[in-house]
C-alpha cells in the first residue's frame, strides 16, 4: 500500500515537473504584440518573418497578428489604443503616416532606437525611403519595412515586333511606340487604371509638386496643385490616347487588372509597382519576354527620383519596458543586412538599405532571371537626392483625397467631364478635406 502510494506520488511529482519545466522556459520569454496589415501570400511572409525571429533567439517572443488589410490595421490600432489594448509594434501604410505623426501616441523611431540602444544606422537607409518617414527636419519616426516604387513594365516581344529592343525613356517615345504597335495590329499597347499613385510618382520624377508647402511637409495649410501645370497636360494626353485606342482601361471591375492584362500578354505596357514583379513572373503567359524600366519623363525634363510606397513599422507608447526591449530586438533584427535581403527574395519588395543592396549586387542576386531588372527600381528611387517635390507626400486624410481623384478621373475618362474640369473638382474637394483635417488637428503641428 505504501509502495503504491510512493509510486503514485513519484509519478505525480515527475508529471508536475515535466509540465513545469516547459512552462518555466516559456514563461521566461518576454512577449510583445506586433500587428501587420498585409494579407494573402504577403501576409504569410509577414507571419513567417515573425516566426523566424522567434526561432532565432530565446529571449523574446513576437506575437504577430494579421489585421486583414492596411485600412483595418490602422483602424484597429486606433480602436485598440482608445481602449488601451494596443500592440507594441504596428505596420502602417504610407498614407497613414500623417495620422500617426500627429497622433501623439507614437514612440518615435529616433528616440526609441536611442533609448533602447538599437544598432540601427539611420544613414544606411536610401534617402528616398528615409525621407518619406522622416520629419521635415530629417528625424525618422518610423522604421521602413516593405518598400516599393513605380516602374514601367514592357513586353519585349511586342516591342520587337515594331523593331525596338529597349523600353521608351520619354513619353514622346512611348507615344510613338504605342502608335507603331497599334498599326502593327496590337489591340492594347498600354493598360491603364485610375490609381492616383501613378500620378504622384510621375509628378515626383518631373520634380513637380502636387501640393503647396512642399507637398505638405511644411504644414497643415497646404493646398492641392494637381489642376495646374504638369498633371492636366499629362492626363489630357492620356485621355487623348485612350480615345485613340492606344491605351485601355483595365481594373478589377472590368475583370482584369493592369497587372493581369500585362501578365497574360494582352497589353504590352503598364505602370505599376515593382512589388508586382513576382506576381507577373508567376502568372505570365508561356514564353513571355518582358522587363521593367524606369518611368518615362517628358522630353526636355531632367529626371528626379521616384517616390517610395509600401509600409513602415511604428512603435506605440504605453507599453512595458520588457515589451519595448522585445520590440527593439525585433526591429534591430529585421534591419540586419541578411534580413533586409530576405524580403526581396520572397516578395517583390526592394531592399531598403545601401549595405544590403550592395551585398545583393555583389552576390549576383540580380543576375538571376527571376529577379532580373529589379535593381532598376533602386536606380529609380535613388536617381537624385530627394528634392522638395520628391521627398514624399504629407497630406492629411490622404486616402480620401486619393479616392476623390480616382472618382474624378473615372468621370473624365468616361467622358462625363473634361479633364480640366475633373481636376478642378478634385482639387476643390481635396482642399475641403485638407481644411477639415487642419481644423480637426488644430493645436497640433506637423513635426
Amino acid at each position, binding site marked *: 500500500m505504501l509502495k503504491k502510494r510512493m509510486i503514485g506520488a513519484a509519478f505525480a511529482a515527475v508529471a508536475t515537473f515535466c509540465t513545469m519545466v516547459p512552462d518555466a522556459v516559456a514563461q521566461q520569454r518576454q512577449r510583445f504584440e506586433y500587428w501587420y496589415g498585409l494579407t494573402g*501570400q504577403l501576409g504569410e511572409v509577414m507571419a513567417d518573418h515573425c516566426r523566424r525571429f522567434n526561432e532565432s533567439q530565446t529571449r523574446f517572443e513576437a506575437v504577430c497578428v494579421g489585421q486583414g488589410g492596411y485600412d483595418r490595421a490602422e483602424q484597429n490600432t486606433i480602436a485598440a489604443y482608445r481602449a488601451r489594448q494596443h*500592440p507594441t509594434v504596428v505596420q502602417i501604410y504610407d498614407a497613414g503616416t500623417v495620422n500617426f505623426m500627429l497622433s501623439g501616441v507614437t514612440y518615435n523611431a529616433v528616440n526609441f532606437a536611442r533609448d533602447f540602444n538599437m544598432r540601427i544606422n539611420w544613414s544606411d537607409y536610401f534617402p528616398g525611403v528615409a525621407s518619406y518617414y522622416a520629419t521635415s527636419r530629417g528625424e525618422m519616426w518610423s522604421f521602413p519595412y516593405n518598400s516599393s516604387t513605380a516602374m514601367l513594365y514592357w513586353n519585349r516581344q511586342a516591342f520587337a515586333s515594331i523593331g525596338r529592343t529597349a523600353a521608351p525613356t520619354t513619353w514622346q517615345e512611348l507615344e510613338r511606340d504605342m502608335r507603331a504597335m497599334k498599326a502593327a495590329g496590337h489591340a492594347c499597347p498600354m493598360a491603364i487604371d485610375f490609381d492616383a499613385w501613378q500620378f504622384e510618382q510621375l509628378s515626383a520624377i518631373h520634380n513637380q509638386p502636387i501640393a503647396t508647402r512642399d507637398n505638405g511637409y511644411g504644414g497643415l495649410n497646404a493646398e492641392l496643385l494637381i489642376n495646374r501645370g504638369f498633371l492636366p497636360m499629362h492626363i489630357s494626353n492620356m485621355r487623348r490616347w485612350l480615345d485613340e485606342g492606344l491605351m485601355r482601361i483595365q481594373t478589377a471591375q472590368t475583370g482584369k487588372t493592369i497587372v493581369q492584362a500585362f501578365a497574360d500578354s494582352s497589353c504590352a505596357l503598364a505602370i505599376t509597382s515593382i512589388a508586382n514583379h513576382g506576381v507577373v513572373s508567376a502568372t505570365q503567359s508561356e514564353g513571355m519576354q518582358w522587363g521593367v524600366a524606369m518611368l518615362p519623363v517628358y522630353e526636355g525634363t531632367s529626371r528626379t527620383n521616384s517616390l517610395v510606397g509600401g509600409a513602415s513599422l511604428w512603435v506605440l507608447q504605453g507599453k512595458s519596458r520588457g515589451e519595448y526591449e522585445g520590440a527593439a530586438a525585433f526591429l534591430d533584427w529585421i534591419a540586419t543586412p541578411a534580413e533586409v535581403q530576405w524580403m526581396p527574395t520572397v516578395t517583390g519588395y526592394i531592399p531598403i538599405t545601401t549595405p544590403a543592396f550592395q551585398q545583393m549586387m555583389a552576390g549576383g542576386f540580380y543576375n538571376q532571371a527571376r529577379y532580373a531588372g529589379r535593381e532598376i527600381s533602386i536606380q529609380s528611387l535613388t536617381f537624385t537626392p530627394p528634392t522638395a517635390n520628391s521627398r514624399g507626400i504629407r497630406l492629411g486624410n490622404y486616402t480620401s483625397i486619393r479616392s476623390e481623384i480616382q472618382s474624378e478621373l473615372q468621370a473624365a475618362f468616361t467622358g462625363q467631364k473634361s479633364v480640366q474640369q475633373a481636376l478642378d473638382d478634385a482639387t476643390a474637394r481635396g482642399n475641403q478635406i485638407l481644411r477639415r483635417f487642419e481644423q480637426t488637428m488644430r493645436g497640433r503641428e506637423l513635426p
Partner: protein
Amino acid sequence: MVERTPLLNLLTHAILVVGLLMLMLPLWIVFVASTHDFRTVNTVPMPLWPGAHMVENYVTTWNQSQFGPKMLNSLIMAVGVTTGKIVLAALSAYSIVYFRYRLRMVFFWLIFITLMLPLEVRIVPTYAVAANALRPFQEIINVLGLSALTDLLFGVRIVLPEAQLLNSYAGLILPLIATATGTFLYRQFFLTVPEELLEAAKMDGTGPLRFFWDILLPLSKANMAALATIMFVYSWNQYLWPLLVVTDPAYGTAVMQLQRIVPGPLFGEPPRWHIAMAGTLMVMLPPLLVVVFMQRWFVRGLINQDK
C-alpha cells in the same frame, strides 16, 4: 392537392429551374475556381468546368490556415449567438405583445432601432465597451454622484471591476445578440396567435409563464427554426467585429482566417484565388449544413397548425 393544371405545372417547373440556375451560378463559379491551380484560375476567362486540383487545394488551405480550431471557435460563437438570440428575443417579444404597460412601445422601438445603425459606424466605441463592459455603469454611477455619496457615507467609492471581454467567447457573442431581428420576428408571429387561445388559458387560471412555455413556444417552432437558421448563418459570417475583438489567434474564427487568405487590392499580392475559393467553400459548409438540417422544420405536418 391533386389538380390537373399541366400548363401551370410546366410554368412552375420552368420558373423553378431558372431560379435554380440564377441562384446556383455564383456558387458554381466559387467551386470551379477552387479546383484549378494558380495559373489556370488566373486566366481570363476562367474555364467553366472543374479542374483536377481539388483535393490538393483543399488540403493545402486546411493545413496552411489551421481551419480546424478556427471552425470550432466559429461554431461556439454561432451557437452562442443563436441560442442567446432565440431565448432573449422570445422573452422580449412576449413582454411587448402580451402585457400592456406604458413603456411597452418605447422598449419595442428602442430594440428595433438597433437594426438601423450599421456596425461599421459604431465599431470603435463598441470595442472600447468590450474592453470593459462595466464601464457604462461605472460612468453612470460617477455622473449620478452615487460614488461620491457612498464615499461620504461609508468612506469607500463604488468601483466596479473591469469586465474585459476581448479575446473571449463572451466578447464574440454578447455584442451580436444585441440586435432586433429576433424580437421583431417573434412579435409578428405572436400577433397572429388567436386571442381565444389566451382567453381560454386565462379562464383556466393559467399564469403568464405557463402560457408562454406550454402553449406559445410550441406554436412558434417554425419561426424559431427560421430564426435559428438565420442567426447561425449571420453570426458565422461575421467578419468585421471578430477581427477587432480578437487578436489572440487561439480565438480566431473561420471567417477571420478566410479574410487573411483572400488576396487584397495591394501591390505585390499574387492572386491565389484557388486557395481563397477553397477556403470560401470550406467556411461556407457548416452554415450550409445547418440550413440543410433545419429544413425539416419547415415541412408541413410537423407543425400542429390546426388550432
